[in-house]
């Protein structure tokens, strides 16, 4: 705290000496805040950087180990050029018969998504989250200009993203890859992240609360992924509508194009300008839309033990569901293109036949796995809700009523379990509906809905784990739950590539789910996962009954 107090004070004196400099007043105190944010995030930012750089580096080095000769690379590349399914998930096949091109393709869109998430969480944390908690008010009452907090958050986040990009470049160089491509890749990753830092800064001005600001940013990140998937599968024109498409079109190791970086930079400048303009037009603490008066009395069901939980979580559930259902619709519509390929490429058919199932089914299995892992994010955040209610001091008045701890935490757990199952079912149904419409087979709806539901026990385990931690190790709950989720995502998206030891892969519950619909239903793992989830939930609820509550 001393830094926070000392910083603005010093700025105050400086401002007193030079009252004539009006122009930069809205940015007064920015540097003090930058130092303060660096101090606050001295652990958080290095953890993000290390996590991303290590993932990229280990993916790259395992590609190198996988394909030691040019012949290996050619063989690996051959079936990919026409594989719509993989292209939709990874990105365009620029120079994938070179080591660098193959690495960039394999890390694919997932790498950009992670950079976007890092930007989102770091910027959101220091803009709308601080403002919602009233900390911005405290800072703005000192000599800190209107635009200083958001500028400081963007500078610190941008710095973190730049370091990440630079370290990615260095790790590529260390693997002996060409300099131009390595610089281009690091720059594309960083520039994409910075663009989404700008997106978050704008979203933080629009909504009154931090959660919906994350919702908007996350949805746009998902949209940019889906739009580029549609474009990459087609002739690539549509990809130009997506900032992720711009980043990809830098084409590292495939005849670098530098000007799309300018597109990202110009976009970022425009976004920051929009954020400043919105800041100048709104009240501190308010959003763009003024809060309207609400209901003077509660509806009948709000006072039921589950009523408040549904009320608190329904908007989040709807947001996640609509994002994932949209993605399901897009991926379902691509299924037919995948089927066309089976005739074209014998090699692909061979590869798929070895894995079992048809090419289309293996495409759907991979897509569903990806969507299920993402749904895991909902399961975790929903199961963590009682923890944020507790630390926010809102659990105490509830638990001082006749509401039991089990009812209270149980209703949130039910929301996590039921909500994530619902999202899966809706996503599978949407995928089945568009695919079924194209191939004229209504049976695809129940088939893909069922296949999606096969992933549900893995989500229940994530929700159960969060509940267990909440009951037994409340202080570690949030960090450990998200760390496990991040690990599941890493294993799910890059597991094959990273060549991780089996036990490390097995930590992820998604590894134990049969790859529906490509493989047949295997009940034992599903039953075991369900039992593990139930055991974790029981431990959590029992632990909650025994521990101190409300801190």
């Amino acid at each position, binding site marked *: 705290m001393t830094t926070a107090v000392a910083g603005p004070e010093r700025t105050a004196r400086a401002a007193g000496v030079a009252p004539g400099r009006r122009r930069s007043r809205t940015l007064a105190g920015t540097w003090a805040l930058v130092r303060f944010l660096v101090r606050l995030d001295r652990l958080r930012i290095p953890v993000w950087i290390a996590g991303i750089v290590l993932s990229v580096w280990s993916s790259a080095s395992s590609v190198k180990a996988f394909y030691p000769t040019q012949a290996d690379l050619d063989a690996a590349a051959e079936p990919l050029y026409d594989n719509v399914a993989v292209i939709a998930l990874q990105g365009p096949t620029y120079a994938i018969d070179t080591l660098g091109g193959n690495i960039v393709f394999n890390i694919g869109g997932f790498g950009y998504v992670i950079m976007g998430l890092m930007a989102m969480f770091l910027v959101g944390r220091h803009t709308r989250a601080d403002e*919602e908690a009233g900390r911005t008010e405290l800072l703005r009452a000192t000599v800190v200009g209107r635009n200083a907090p958001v500028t400081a958050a963007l500078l610190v986040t941008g710095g973190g993203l730049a370091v990440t990009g630079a370290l990615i470049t260095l790790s590529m160089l260390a693997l002996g890859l060409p300099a131009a491509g390595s610089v281009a890749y690091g720059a594309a990753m960083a520039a994409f992240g910075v663009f989404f830092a700008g997106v978050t800064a704008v979203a933080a001005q629009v909504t*009154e*609360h931090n959660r919906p600001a994350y919702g908007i940013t996350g949805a746009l990140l998902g949209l940019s992924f889906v739009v580029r998937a549609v474009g990459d599968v087609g002739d690539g024109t549509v990809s130009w509508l997506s900032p992720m498409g711009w980043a990809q079109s830098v084409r590292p190791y495939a005849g670098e194009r530098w000007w799309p970086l300018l597109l990202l930079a110009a976009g970022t400048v425009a976004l920051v300008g929009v954020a400043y303009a919105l800041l100048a037009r709104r009240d501190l*603490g308010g959003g763009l839309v003024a*809060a309207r*008066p*609400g*209901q*003077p*009395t*509660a509806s009948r069901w*709000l*006072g*039921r*033990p589950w*009523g*408040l939980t549904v*009320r*608190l979580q329904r908007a989040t559930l709807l947001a996640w569901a609509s994002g994932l259902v949209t993605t399901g619709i897009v991926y379902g519509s691509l299924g037919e293109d995948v089927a066309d390929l089976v005739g074209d490429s014998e090699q692909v058919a061979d590869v798929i036949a070895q894995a079992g199932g048809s090419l289309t089914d293996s495409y759907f299995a991979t897509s569903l796995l990806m969507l299920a892992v993402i749904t895991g994010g909902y399961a975790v955040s929903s199961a963590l809700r009682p923890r944020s209610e507790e630390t*926010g*001091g*809102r659990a*105490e*008045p*509830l*638990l*001082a*009523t*006749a*509401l*039991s*701890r089990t009812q209270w935490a149980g209703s949130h757990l039910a929301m996590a379990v039921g909500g994530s199952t619902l999202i899966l079912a809706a996503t599978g149904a949407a995928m089945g509906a568009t695919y079924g419409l194209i191939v004229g087979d209504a049976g695809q709806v129940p088939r893909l809905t069922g296949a999606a539901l096969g992933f549900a026990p893995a989500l229940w385990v994530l929700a159960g784990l969060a509940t267990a931690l909440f009951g037994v190790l409340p202080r570690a709950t949030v960090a450990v739950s998200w760390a496990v989720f991040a690990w599941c995502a890493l294993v799910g998206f890059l597991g094959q590539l990273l060549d991780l030891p089996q036990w490390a892969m097995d930590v992820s519950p998604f590894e134990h789910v049969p790859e529906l619909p490509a493989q047949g239903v295997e009940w034992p793992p599903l039953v075991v996962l369900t039992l593990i989830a139930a055991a974790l939930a029981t431990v959590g609820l029992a632990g909650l009954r*025994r*521990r*101190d*509550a*409300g801190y």
Partner: protein
Amino acid sequence: MTAAISVSGLVKTFGHVRALDGLDLEVATGEVHGFLGPNGSGKSTTIRVLLGLLRPDAGAVRLLGGDPWHDAVELHRRLAYVPGDVNLWPNLTGGEVVDLLGELRGGLDRRRRDEMIERFDLDPRKKGRTYSKGNRQKVALVAALASDVELLVLDEPTSGLDPLMEAVFQDTVREITGDGRTVLLSSHVLAEVEALGDRVSIIRAGRTVESGTLAEMRHLTRTSISVETAGPVTGLDALAGVHDLVVDDHRATFDVDTARLDDAMRHLTSLGIRGLTSQPPTLEELFLRHYGDELSELEGGPGGAAGNGAAGTAAGAAG
């Protein structure tokens, strides 16, 4: 008559911090019991133990004839609680929160709810995010005072309220206790407890230091007097119970034990009072005075308590 609350030898530790260190508390059914102590003395911790939110490490705790930890849900039907720091759900309106807490307690009297909302001048249509601190406090107060319960547990309930609302609060509490209900009122403002309380328990550093009726506590309190007299002030220093006397010709300021107030006034009247202001003692003054010796001993030397920061730190560093 059974006690509504009965606590003896209560101990609660958080890691190395001993928040409650053998606390005792008896609250008889039907009384307003003032629960006094400086900030950080363990009032809220005690209340959280009484609500079954924290598990005691040692000691016996009975609340409305039950065990607050094991019978929490059943007991909570019979009590209402106002936290010291009210946090609301940002997107729920005040009216919704009042109903929610009432329903979760097992139902609420709609007529009384509307009456309380009107009495406290609360806008029930505003969202939690838009309420000021005082209005958030009002939401919790309305929810508690509108309920038909045997026991009200109020943790510094008037913090953030304006004097007008404080008066409304005091009237309402008097009404409620008229019906034979029990109130545990935690506060660090002595005047508030004096206005409402039958009996008081004073705690410090997790321990009960005094407990009894307010009349019994008179020996603890001193009134600060500032007076202007017709002639020069003389003879005050000879009176028993007068402290910290500063005389400037015909003006004087001093503190007097409340029990000796009458003597001092008599003497001043004989001098001819031109102007007089008196201030009731604050709890902090009371503590510093009554436990000052103990405090300065604890904090390493005379002046440690009064000088607070600087002297205390210096002594601490030397020791």
